[in-house]
C-alpha cells in the first residue's frame, strides 16, 4: 500500500513542523496531535515515517544498537564487539505502531512462545518497545490506550530503559524512542502524566478555508486514482524534506543560543506559569531544532515564537473554570513577552 507523501499534505503547518522538529532532535520528547477528526493526523505521521533518513545500526541487532555508541550496547552487541564480529548496516529508522489492542507481553517483550512450547526453552522475545528503540513509537487514539499500557510507557519513556521481570525472565534493554500520539479530545482527556511526556503538542483543526479544502480533495482524489504516480510526482519534494532533516541533524550541535533569547524563554515560562523546568528545556530545544531546520547559525526570537505554542500549550496549570483555550493563552503571553 502506498503512503501519502509528506510534502503533499495541505496545510497543517504546525503539525508538520512539530514532527520535523522532533525528527531533528529526538530528545525533545515527541509530539501529541490532538484535535478534530479526519484532519490527516495519522496520515502526516505515517508520511513522516516514509521519509525519515536512514540510521546506522548494528546488523541483525533486535534493538538497533548504534555502532557509534558502544557504551549503550545491548548484551549481544557487547559480546560481538569483544569478539570483533560486529557488522554495521544502514536501515530506515523504525516507526512502530502501538495498536490499541496490543497486549502487555508484546509491548514490553516476553517469553518466546514458540521456544517455550516447542523446545521448552526460556528465551526473551523483544517487544514493540525494543523495536521502536532509536525510532518512533506511534499510538493512534492515544487517549483510549489501556491504563496499564500507559503505565508501562510512562515508566520506559522516563528511564529510556525497558526492564522486564516476568514469567521467570529478567531482561533489560535500552528503549529510547520518540513518542507520537494522536487523538480526539471528545473521546476523553489524556492522563496529565502522559500529557507531560510529550515534548510538543499540536492542536489540529479542520480547515475552513474553501480553497485549502478544495486542494485537499483534489490531492486525495489523484492519490486514490493512481497512488504510485502520485507518490512519484511528490518524490522530489519529499527527498528535499529528508535532506533538510539530515542537514539539521548535522548542524544542530553547532547552533548557538544567545543569552537574550534564553532570558526571553524563561520570561515566557514565568508569565504562563508553565510548571517545572521541562517546559523551558523543551522550548529551547525545539527552538534550536527549528533554527537548524531553517539553516540558521543561532536561535532567534522568531523560532521561539514559532515553537512556543506547541512546546508550552499542554503544560499550563489548569484552572477548570477558566474556559480560555490554552493555545490562546500562549499566544497572548508571546505577544506580551516577545513584543
Amino acid at each position, binding site marked *: *500500500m502506498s503512503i501519502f507523501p509528506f510534502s503533499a499534505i495541505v496545510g497543517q503547518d504546525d503539525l508538520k513542523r512539530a514532527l520535523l522538529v522532533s525528527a531533528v532532535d529526538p530528545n525533545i520528547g515527541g509530539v501529541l496531535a490532538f484535535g*478534530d*477528526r*479526519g*484532519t490527516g493526523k*495519522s496520515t502526516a505521521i505515517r508520511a513522516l515515517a516514509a521519509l525519515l533518513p536512514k540510521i546506522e545500526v548494528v546488523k541483525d541487532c533486535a534493538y538497533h544498537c548504534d555502532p557509534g555508541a558502544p557504551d549503550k550496547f545491548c548484551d549481544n552487541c557487547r559480546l560481538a564487539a569483544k569478539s570483533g564480529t560486529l557488522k554495521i548496516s544502514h536501515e530506515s529508522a523504525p516507526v512502530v505502531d*502501538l*495498536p*490499541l*489492542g*496490543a*497486549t502487555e*507481553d*508484546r*509491548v514490553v517483550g*516476553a*517469553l*518466546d*512462545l*514458540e521456544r*517455550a*512450547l*516447542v523446545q*521448552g526453552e526460556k528465551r526473551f*522475545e523483544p*517487544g*514493540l518497545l525494543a523495536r521502536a528503540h532509536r525510532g518512533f513509537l506511534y499510538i*493512534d*487514539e492515544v487517549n*483510549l490506550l*489501556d*491504563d*496499564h499500557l500507559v503505565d508501562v510507557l510512562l515508566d520506559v519513556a522516563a528511564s529510556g530503559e525497558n526492564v522486564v521481570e516476568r*514469567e*521467570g525472565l529478567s531482561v533489560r534493554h535500552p528503549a529510547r524512542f520518540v513518542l507520537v500520539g494522536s487523538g*480526539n*479530545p*471528545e*473521546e*476523553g*482527556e*489524556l*492522563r*496529565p502524566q502522559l500529557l507531560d511526556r510529550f515534548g510538543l503538542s499540536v492542536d489540529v483543526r*479542520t*480547515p*475552513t*478555508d*474553501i*480553497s485549502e*479544502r*478544495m486542494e*485537499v*480533495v483534489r490531492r486525495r*482524489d489523484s492519490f*486514490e486514482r493512481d497512488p504510485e504516480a502520485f507518490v512519484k510526482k511528490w518524490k522530489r519534494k519529499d527527498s528535499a524534506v529528508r535532506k533538510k532533516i539530515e542537514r539539521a541533524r548535522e548542524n544542530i550541535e553547532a547552533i548557538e543560543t544567545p543569552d537574550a533569547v534564553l532570558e526571553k524563554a524563561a520570561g515566557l515560562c514565568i508569565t504562563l506559569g508553565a510548571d517545572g523546568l521541562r517546559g523551558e528545556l523543551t522550548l529551547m530545544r525545539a527552538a534550536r531544532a527549528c533554527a537548524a531546520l531553517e539553516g540558521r547559525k543561532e536561535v532567534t526570537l522568531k523560532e521561539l515564537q514559532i515553537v512556543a505554542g506547541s512546546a508550552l500549550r499542554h503544560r499550563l496549570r*489548569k484552572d*477548570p*473554570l477558566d*474556559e480560555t483555550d490554552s493555545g490562546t493563552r500562549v499566544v497572548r503571553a508571546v505577544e506580551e513577552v516577545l513584543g
Partner: protein
Amino acid sequence: MASVTAHPSGEEEGGAREPADSGKEQWRNAYVVAGLLAVDPIGLGGVCIRSGPGPVRDWWTDQFFALLPAPAPRRKLPIGASEERLLGGLDLSMTLSTGQPVAERGLLADADGGAIIAAMAERMTPATAANIAAAMDQGSVIIERNGVSRRDETRFACVLFDEGVAASERPPQLLLDRIAFHIDLDNVSIRDVAAGDFDAAIVSKARESLSSIETPAEIAKAINAASLSLGVVSMRALLFCMSVARASAAIQGRDAVIDADAELACRLVLAPRFAPPLVMEPEQSAPPPKQQNDAGDDKESKEESLETDEIEDMIVNAVRGVAMTSLLGKSSRSVRRNASVGSGGKSGAPVESKLKGRPLGSRKGNVRDGGRLDVIATLRTAAPWQKLRSQSAFAGCDRQVRLSVYPEDINIKRFKGRTESVVIFVVDASGSSAMHRMAEAKGAVELLLADCYTRRDHVALIAFRGQGADLLLPPTRSLARVRRALGALPGGGGTPLAAGLAAAATLAETEKRKGKTPYVVILSDGRGNIGLNGEPGRAAAEEDAVMTARRLREINCTTLFFDISNRPSPRAQRLSNELRAFYQPLPYADSAAVSKTVKAAIAAA
C-alpha cells in the same frame, strides 16, 4: 437505464411526495444507500442504520450483500467479541497440536472483501471501535498479542445497527465519522419493502467505471461551500460527499458528476451530520462568510461562479429540509421508544474482568474467550502429565517432544475490573436563580472532571425547566465536550421536577445496563409545579415527583440531594427520604462544595 428514485427533486410521477420519514421513503433511501455503498464499499466506509432487529433490516442486509461482488464475506460482530476474536491472535489448539505457533485470523481479517455487521452498535466499546477504525484506516489489522506479531491485509465495509433508545446511546463517534451513510429504517414496515431499480449487474458496471468519473470543478466547489455553510466542516464528510456523488453518477451510467448527484450525495452525507445550532460556542460555529467562496480563484468566470452558488443553494436547502423533518420525527419516536423501556439487563455490580485491572491470579479457561494466557501456570499444569503424554499422544512422532501441553492445561489470568462510574447531575434550571445555579452546577461538573482523569469517571447533566427535562450533556469525560454543551445554558420557566427525575432514572438505568455505576446528584428545592404531562399544577406535580422518585430509588444507585432553597425545606427533605438520598442543604450551591461532596460519596461507595 436505471434511475435512482430517491432523488429529492420532487419530480416523482404518481402523486404527492412522501414525507422524508415515512416508511416508503425511508426504504427507498436505504435501497439507494445499499446501491451506492455496494459501488464503493471501501471508499465509503459503510453505513449506520438506526433500526431495531427485525425482518426489514435483514432484508436490507441481504439486498446489500447481493449487490456486492461475490464472494463477499459477511461477518457478524457479536457485541461481546473479545479483542482476540476481533483482531486474531494465537490459535492455541492448533499451536499445541502442531507444536509451533499458529496464528488465527480475526473477524476483521476474515471480512476482507465484504462487510462486518455490528448489531447493537450503540453498546460497542470505544476500544472495539478504535480497533475497527484502525483496520479501516490502514487496510490491515496489526496484531501484537500473546506472542503473535503479524499484519493481515483486509478491506471491508461496516454495517452498524444502532438500536439505541436514549439520545446518549449512539455508536462510538470515531466509527460514525469513518462511514459515509447514517440512515433510518425505524418507520419501515415489511409492507414498504420493495425491490429497487438497480441490480448487481448495474452496480458492478458502475464499480468498474467509478475511477474514470470526473467531478466538474464548479460542482466540487458547490459541495464544499454547501458543507461549510451548513456547518459540517469535517474533511471526511466532504470527501464522502465527493465519493458518493461519483458513485451516484456511476450508477446512472454517466461519465461525469451532475448537480443531481451532488444533491443526493450531500443529502445522504451532510443531513445526518448537520446539527441545527441550538447550543454552540460562537468560535466553533462560524462558517466563513459567503464572499470567501469565490476568493482566491480568479480563473473562473462570473457565470461559472454564479452556477456554483445556485447549486450550493439547492444543496443547502435540500439538506436543511431533510434534517429538519428527521429532527421532528426523532422527537416523537424517542417518546414512543422510551415508553417501552423495560428494566431488564444486567446490573452494574463490579465485574471480574479478563483483561483489565488488578491481577487476581489465574484460573483454567480458554484463551478464545478473551482471557490472557498465563504461560507459567499453564506449563505448571501440564508438567505432571509429561511422562504419560510422551508415551501416548506423540508416540508415533519421530520429533522429540520436550513438553506436551493439552488444551485443558490452559490457564488464563484473572483481573479485578474496576467499574466506571457515571455522575448524573439533575439541575433545576427554572425560575430566577437558574443562571446562577446552572453556572455552579457546570462548575461542579468541570471540577469533578478535572479531578477524574485518572479515575476515568463520566459525568452527565440533565436540566429541567419549562415543560420538561433535557439531557444537556450525555455521559462524557471530555472537558472539551462539557464546554461546548454547557456553553450557553438557557434557563427560566416552570419547574418540571418530575420530568427531571424521570430523565435521570432513564439515564441511570441505561448506564447501569452498560455495566457502569450511576450516581445521581440533584440540585433542587424540591418544589415542582409542572407535572410529568407538562401541565402546570402544584399538587399533581408533587405527586408525580414522588412517584418518579420511587422509580429512581428502585434503580438502587447512590443519590445525593442538594437542597438549594434558602432554608432547608420540608418538601425537599421528604423527597430526599423518598429517594433514600443523602440530603444536604446548600443555599448557595457553590461548585466546590458540590464536587467535594460527590467525590466523597463516590469514594465511600
